[in-house]
């Protein structure tokens, strides 16, 4: 008998509750797009904002409404992009992952100081006060604004210079926005040869301010294949569409050792060899 009554009680309670839920569900219906759920599950979910949207759910919604491209998410790996493309029913071009690189080599013992900076250890704040005491007005201030904003801690400050560990970097681009002197560029992962200087001054002025500037001697341009290295005023730039071979720094014989590879592929043989030991 007791079992009978227990079942009866449970059924009655369940019935009442089921009815009330059913009624409320009808009145308060909110339609939900199933496609957004599927895309959201595929996305890495780091909410890093690299795609320009406020987090992955926002990006997923605009993806399903066609307002955003699958390549918009810099963090997702190639096969994840293919899966998302299938869900959306679109084709996706094979896409090389992008990593960040700091185009400056002026650590404390290479770059000179023109004044004693006494203030906040933050690049954007130091930049307001006479360029943080650094002689070169294009150089990296080394107060780790980029390192603090990196979601995966891929940037290390060694001896006053920001160095990106390109094997850890997910290419979300937050550091590019954080640097007050726009030294950080997102470059394809495969090209590791860079000119570690962004100063547009004349070569002779740069030598006074720093030991490792790019003095625009164009030796590397001659040694590299045609238009693998581009000349931009007094500065030489790597052409990131047609990047040079990884061992160019050894062959080019750059007089100030400004040409080098991004970490950790640095064949960069430095006269003082500081960057290599410190960072490795």
């Amino acid at each position, binding site marked *: 008998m007791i079992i009978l009554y227990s079942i009866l009680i449970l059924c009655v309670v369940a019935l009442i509750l089921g009815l009330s839920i059913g009624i409320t569900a009808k009145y308060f219906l909110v339609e939900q797009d199933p496609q957004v759920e599927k895309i959201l599950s595929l996305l890495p979910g780091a909410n890093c904002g690299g795609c320009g949207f406020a987090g992955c759910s926002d990006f997923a919604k605009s993806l399903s409404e066609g307002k955003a491209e699958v390549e918009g998410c810099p963090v997702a790996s190639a096969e994840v992009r293919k899966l998302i493309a299938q869900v959306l029913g679109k084709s996706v071009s094979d896409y090389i992952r992008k990593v960040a690189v700091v185009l400056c080599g002026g650590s404390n013992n290479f770059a000179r100081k*023109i*004044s004693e900076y*006494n*203030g*906040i*250890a*933050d690049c*954007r*704040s130091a930049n*307001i*006060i*006479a*360029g943080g*005491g650094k002689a070169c*007005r294009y150089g990296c201030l080394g107060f780790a604004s980029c390192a603090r904003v990196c979601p995966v801690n891929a940037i290390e400050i060694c001896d006053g210079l920001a160095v990106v560990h390109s094997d850890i970097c997910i290419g979300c681009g937050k550091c590019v926005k954080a640097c007050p002197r726009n030294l950080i560029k997102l470059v394809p992962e495969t090209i590791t040869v860079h000119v570690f200087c962004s100063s547009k001054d004349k070569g002779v002025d740069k030598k006074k301010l720093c030991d490792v500037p790019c003095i625009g001697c164009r030796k590397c341009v001659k040694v590299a294949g045609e238009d693998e290295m581009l000349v931009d005023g007094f500065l030489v730039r790597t052409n990131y569409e047609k990047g040079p071979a990884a061992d160019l720094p050894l062959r080019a014989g750059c007089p100030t050792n400004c040409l080098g590879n991004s970490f950790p592929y640095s064949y960069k043989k430095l006269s003082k060899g500081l960057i290599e030991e410190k960072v490795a």
Partner: protein
Amino acid sequence: MNYSHDNHLYFYGGVHPDDSKKLSACEPIKDAPLLEKYTVIVGQNIGAPPKVIVKKGDIVKKGQKIAEASAFVSANLHSPTSGTVSAITEIIGVFGAIVPAIEITSDGKDEACESTKIEPSKASPEELLAKIADAGLVGMGGAAFPTVVKLSPPKAKKIDTLIINGAECEPYLTADYRLMLESPDKVLRGVAIFAKILGVNRIIIGVEANKPDAIENLRKSHLLNEYGIEVKSLRVRYPQGAEKQLIYALTGRKVPSGGLPMDVACVVQNIGTSFAAYEAVYEGKTLYERVTTITGSRVVKPGNWRLRIGTPISKAIELCGGIKGDVAKIVAGGPMMGLAQISLDTTIMKSSSGILLLGNEEIIQYRNQPCIRCGNCVDVCPMELLPGPLSVYIENERFDLAEKEFVMDCMECGSCAYVCPSKRPLVQHFKRAKAEIIAKRKSQQLSQKAK
């Protein structure tokens, strides 16, 4: 030393640093000798920098216009001497950044260009305004806001009071003080010109009570009742000379948060600007020189010099007999709001009210220790903000919270950092926050327009 004063509207907070004006207070204003080269910085005023209208090799006369105001909020620039434009170069500016400048090599004749004088009683307000605009007048108190813009408020805003800021509340500076002592009549006539342009009848000159002889000197002049000018002595407390605090102390009106003095029908001008207005109208002299106090414990003989725009700091120090002891910091302007200089060939601008040479024991050593919420800054902030918690928000990049707690109202007067036991660089936090918030607002406007 507390002085008796007759203003009873005390603004909130404020600090009381030792005014150390005695170093240069009794030094009369001396004219600087002609130099062989002047480097005039182009962007010398708030708003758009003027457009350079001379090129290399041009011959210019003293006072001749070398750069044209490029917008409504801009000011003309004039050559400090006669000679040739030797180069359009770049030098390290007052903010430490590289700025464009015009280099003029003097030909020794120092011959002035022809200029028109006007008799103010006969001239109409528009003519006077045009003359002041042509002379390239800017606020000489340190802000360098183009005077012509302040003197032509929009029709909707009725102006009924002109306030002349003789407070000079920054320690060490005595430029305005000497002007009030040595040429009160010229200053008062300059004030009258402003009053005529604005068409106001109530004119008040506020002078801090620690300059009793200057107040006495002004009150003695017969021009007071001729132009209907009142001279009031103010409580000695930094920042008495700040616009909003000065208006409140003299008229009891509070400029609304985020508003301008014209919102409460007031216009504020500086003593130095009034003197320059006199020279522009009565003597037809454009603004190419100004009185600067060169002082500080590391100067052999501190003094008040009338330096021409474009005189490098090294030359100014040479005038005072070089330095004694080791200099830790060179400051352009006063110790509370001035800018630390990093190069000796930065040159004097229209707004350089002083050059300070300070030793290591006098200057603050910022140590950025955490805020211990002691409330000293809350007690002294004249804008009644909460500097401590604001700086903690900004340190953690929370500009949204900082904006909600009115960081945009901060006028960077430095009172909070002066009393902070943790020696935090509070003003640097606020400068950065304001720059970020303005950038964010601009990008929001752009995105709204783009939609």
